[in-house]
């Protein structure tokens, strides 16, 4: 069964550094998403992406965040200048309708 893959599984970065989290969605899906889960808290919506543009974003998704689909397969989340509070598990998801398929996540640790 096709799946969403995310790399790396764990990334440690220094505060103020830029990070890029990578995702390969399921190939025939058209909608792409990023969510995050701070340790012990609920999963929070960050952004949805369709037809090469952001279709909706949350208040969390400020100017420090950006998303890109640089080619036909990858979907990336960039955090320009990381803060300690950006430490979380970041999940990528894709869908062609109602069912979102989630990747196994990237654990980002900002030190």
């Amino acid at each position, binding site marked *: 069964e096709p799946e*969403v893959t995310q790399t790396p599984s764990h990334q440690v970065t220094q505060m103020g550094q830029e990070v890029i989290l990578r995702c390969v969605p399921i190939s025939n899906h058209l*909608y792409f*998403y990023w*969510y995050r889960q701070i340790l012990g*808290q*609920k*999963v*929070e*919506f960050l952004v*949805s992406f369709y037809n090469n543009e952001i*279709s*909706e974003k*949350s208040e969390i998704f400020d100017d420090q965040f950006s998303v890109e689909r640089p080619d036909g397969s990858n979907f990336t989340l960039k955090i320009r200048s990381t803060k300690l509070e950006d430490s979380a598990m970041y*999940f990528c*998801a894709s*869908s062609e*309708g*109602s*069912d*979102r*398929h*989630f*990747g*196994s*996540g990237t654990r980002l640790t900002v030190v």
Partner: protein
Amino acid sequence: AQSVTQLDSQVPVFEEAPVELRCNYSSSVSVYLFWYVQYPNQGLQLLLKYLSGSTLVESINGFEAEFNKSQTSFHLRKPSVHISDTAEYFCAVSDRGFQKLVFGTGTRLLVSP
């Protein structure tokens, strides 16, 4: 805007006992409802969903949930749990546009022998 409330942060049960995980939602528009499961150190997996039609929906591993519009609830039930059901369970709601999936805070199901 939609919101989801999962009142129970943790539910301990013994193996083979029945369980109900509660979920209530609020929304000003028609919604779709989902339950996701997260096993330790893994991502989210769709357990079951309600889009339309029968208000009782079932998963392949014995879970079921019933959409109750008057009570704005979508409680998850299983008549007999297994040790392997130990996981975090998230209720979620989206509007009919599928853009934004809003999650509850999750309920940790702990099944012991």
